[in-house]
Each structure stands twice: as C-alpha cells, then as structure tokens.
C-alpha cells in the first residue's frame, strides 16, 4: 500500500490517469496540445464543410453533409468539455476563431499550423467544390479513423473514452464520403476527382506529423502514443490506395 511510485513510472508501465489533479506538468502540456489540436481540427473541418452543404447534388447528399457538420461539431464539443476541466474557458474557446477561415488553395504551409489555432495544417486549405469536398472528406476520414484508433489508447482515460465513442462516428463519415465518391465516379467526373485526390493526398499525408523519434518516445512513455507516425501514415496509404483503386482512381504521392 505504501509503496511509492512516480507518476512517470506508473504511466510508462501502462497506468491510466483520470483527472487533472495529478497529471504531471509536461504530460499536461502534451495532453492539452493533443486535445486542442483535435478540437480545433474538428471545428475547422465542420465549419469548412458547412459551406458546401448546398452544393450537394440532391437532398440525400445534403443531408449527409449536414449530418457530418453536426457530428463533427459535437465531437469537438465532447473534447472541449474535457479541456474545460483543465481550466480552459470553453465558452470563449468556441468563439475564439473564425473556424471557416481558410488560406489560399495554393498556399504551401507543409505541416505548419497557423498562428491562430492548433488545427492540423490540412484544415487551412479551402475546399473547391462538392466533389473536392467529398475527396478530402474521404481521404481525411480514413486518416482520422486510424488516428482515433491510436488515440483511443491514450493514458488519460476520460479522453480515451471520448475517442472510443467518437471513432465509429468518424468512420461513418468516411463511409458516407465513399458513397458520395461512387456517385461522382458514375457521373464520369474522373479527371476532376483525380485532380482533387492529387491535391489532397500530400496534405492529408502531412497530417500524420513528422518522424521525430525522440518526441515519439517521450509521448510513448507518457502512454499518449503507441504507433509511430510513419507506420500510421503507411497504413493509411495502403487503405487509401485500396479505396481509390475500387473507384478507378490512383494514389500518386
């Protein structure tokens, strides 16, 4: 009972934390970064997608797009609620940024985030039209599914639980996107679709981050990561190539 064990060693052995009271400072910083990045990306993703709802070809497509916007916003809210337990002012947070704001389509920012928020770089690029939105949503949806599987194991249990609940919802968004893609392929928009694929592929690939192994080992010791970025990215590429191939599109990285 009275054995002493440091939180760091507890985490390295697979221990779970459950409230903000006893997370060590460095862990807290990484955890908050992870949560903020998710919230900002989900809010920016939802806001960007909201603009194309009306471009959906038919009511069913617009319902699907609206549902995606609604659910991504709700997913952001679930994680934001946890951020609130760490002292974040959630009400101010929600209105902090113009979430729909985007850079130029030709902007080249690599993996850099903007100075305003922590959204993944990919969410700073604008969607061109409906088919472009479908392609982006499919590629990013497959990436998010893998990333959420990874993050469902994080050592901060309340966040792991939220991610476990969110994962099937995000997976479904990618499925909706694939249905949308199938329809667009039938309408023979292949060239435009392939152009969108070529545009989004490197940008989504960049969202997996770099291969900084020292950083990864530190996060792993905290129980915040399990699988290296490279492995996740390779896995995603395989999944994306298979999905695209089914619809006669190719993955040219």
């Amino acid at each position, binding site marked *: 009972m009275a054995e002493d064990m440091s939180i760091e060693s507890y985490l390295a052995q697979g221990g779970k934390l459950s409230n903000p009271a006893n997370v060590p400072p460095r862990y807290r910083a990484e955890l908050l970064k992870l949560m903020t990045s998710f919230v900002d990306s989900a809010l920016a993703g939802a806001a960007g997608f909201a603009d194309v709802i009306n471009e959906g070809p038919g009511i069913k497509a617009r319902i699907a797009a609206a549902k995606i916007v609604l659910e991504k916003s709700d997913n952001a809210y679930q994680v934001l609620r946890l951020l609130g337990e760490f002292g974040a002012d959630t009400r101010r947070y929600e209105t902090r940024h113009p979430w729909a704001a985007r850079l130029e389509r030709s902007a080249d920012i690599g993996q850099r985030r903007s100075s305003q928020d922590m959204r993944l770089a990919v969410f700073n690029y604008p969607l061109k039209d409906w088919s472009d939105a479908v392609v982006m949503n499919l590629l990013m949806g497959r990436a998010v599914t893998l990333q959420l599987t990874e993050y469902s194991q994080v050592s901060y249990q*309340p966040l792991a639980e939220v991610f476990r609940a969110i994962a099937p919802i995000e997976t479904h968004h990618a499925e909706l996107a694939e249905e949308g893609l199938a329809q667009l392929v039938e309408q023979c928009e292949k060239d435009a679709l392939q152009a969108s694929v070529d545009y989004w592929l490197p940008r989504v690939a960049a969202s997996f981050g770099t291969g900084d192994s020292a950083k990864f080992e530190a996060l792993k010791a905290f129980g915040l990561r399990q699988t290296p970025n490279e492995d996740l990215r390779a896995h995603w590429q395989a999944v994306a190539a298979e999905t695209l191939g089914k619809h006669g599109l190719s993955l040219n990285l």
Partner: protein
Amino acid sequence: MARFHELEVTDVRKTIRDAVVVTLKPVNGAAAEFEFTQGQYLTFRRDFDGEELRRSYSICAGKDEGVLQVGIKRVDGGAFSTWANADLKTGDRLEAMPPMGSFFTPLDAGSGKNYLGFAGGSGITPVLSILKTTLAAEPESSFTLVYANKGVNTIMFREELEDLKNLYMGRFNVIHILESDAQEIDLFTGLVTEEKCAQLFEHWIDIESTDTAFICGPEPMMLGIASALRNAGLDDAQIKFELFASAQPGRAKRKASSAEDSRAGNQAQMAITLDGATQTLEVSKDMTVLDAALGNAMDAPYACKAGVCSTCRCRVLEGEVEMVANHALEDYEVEKGYVLSCQAYPVTDNVVVDYDQ
C-alpha cells in the same frame, strides 16, 4: 469554464483516526451546480500562508442520498488534508468547483450487471459512492468490493459497508485484504498484487461474468489489478481507473520572504484587461502577472502554473515582462507579445497586458 462556489460545512465526522467525512451544502444559490454523478470529485481551493492550494477529494455519498459528502484522509505533510482533519468545523465555508470526473458508468434500472470494485485505503471514497448508487439504482445488479487496508483500524467506512451488506444481502460482497493484520484466510492478508488478484479470480470472484471493474488506489496497486483484469479477459473499456491519493503533493510552499517586496523601486504599475474590464494595479516585480491578477480578485484563467499548458496566456501591449519558463508558446506567439502570465514577471515600471486577445 468551471468557477469556484462557496459551500457551507454542515457536518464533520471522523471515520477513522486520521480521516474525516465532510458534509457540505452549496450556498448562494449554487445548489444546481453541485448535482453530481457517483464517483465524481470536488476540487477545493484554500489559502495557506498566502499560497493558494487546490486539492481534489472524491464524493463518498450516493447519488440519491440527498447529501454532498467528501472523505478526506490526512496525508503526512499534506497542508490541506491536515487542516481539514484538525481544524475544519461545522459552519465553516469552503470553496470548490462543481463536481467533475468520469469515474462511473451509466446506470440502467433494467439491467442486471456484475460490478467489481477495488479500493486501496482512502481510494474507497469514490468506490463507495459508486456502489451505493449502483445497488440502489439497479435492483438486479451485484457488486463485489475488494478493499485493501493496512489493518482493521485503518478501514474507512467499515461499519457503513457492513450495513450495506445487510441491506443488499446477496447482492453486495466485501473482501477485506489487510496488509499487516492476519486473517483467517491467508489469501486475505498482504498486498493486493497481480498474483493476489489472479488467486481471487480462481475461487472468490466470478471474473468471467464481470461487466465492469472500478479501481481506485495507489499506482502500483492499480497497475497490478489492471494487469490481472486484462489477463482475465477484460478489455480497456471495462476497466475504470481513478488515481488520487498518493499522487498529490500536499505541502504548502513557504512563501519567499516578502519583507523586501515592498521596497521602493521594486514596484511596477500594471494594467490588466480581463473579460473586457481593465484594472490598474501597483504590484511587486517579484510577483507574476497571473498572481497579481489573482491577488486582486481578477478571475484570470490558469491551470498548471508551470508554464506548460498555456491556459494563462495573455498579451503584453506595453512595457516588458520576463518569462522564467516557457514550454507552451511557440516562437511566433512570443514575437507577437504573448506570454504565459504564470511565468511572467514585470521588468519595466509600466506594463499593460490583455487576457482577451
């Protein structure tokens, strides 16, 4: 954002020699804020010699008992817990944030589940709340508690647990594991380790039919139990953790000598904007921007106070401050004048900062 509210102490009762159960009543119309779910905790704040301490304690009452109670065990050298055990009395007021935490699973009156709880020492508090609530809300469910303590005289809520056994005959079972007191059955003596759990799962606990397990105790115990549960086939979603007691450094820091703080030449005038309102303060240069704001009743946002979480970020509009640590802000943010107010000390005699930007 969670804010602190005042609570009145309506009762302080000793459970064992060094632990009290404190009953609280929200005042100033904050009752609705303190509706809680079983297994949640309250975060208190109190000033000790000018240093604010925040401590979290689990609610030990059941959801439907109509009272708000926390259990506070005295930790050696722990400023808050020692004070609560020695000086806290009925009629005192405490400040706490509304209940937080997700150490619970949703309840359903129609379901008949088998729950397993593990508690080490004062780790019993949230588990007690969970088991009382669950047994009352789910008449078909059963709960087995494995409760680890040093000896018989350190068992918190021992009588209450006996009463619950009688009340929920056949649905509630307690296994006491005592570190130093010998018991009739050898298995029930010693530490609750992975091996001990595996042995318990052989004859004493029906692990195959367990739906959810709750664990609250010190780190090594939690690791051992979790490992045994996983080996027995439970997955992560079925194991709920709450880590509390041993991880909280409780000692209040001694405030650095403040005699020279007030000497002339060490003062700065600081204008702080927060939530649209600006206050101008005369402050010591030995005080962080955040502490200056907090010390003047401004509810500035902060969390870690260690320069890592960036919750306390503000922007310097005029003058100069020095950050002693920065693990959160990127270079471009610093260039724009953003600072972590918990780490920022005034350098110039005039400083203007804004939390709203």
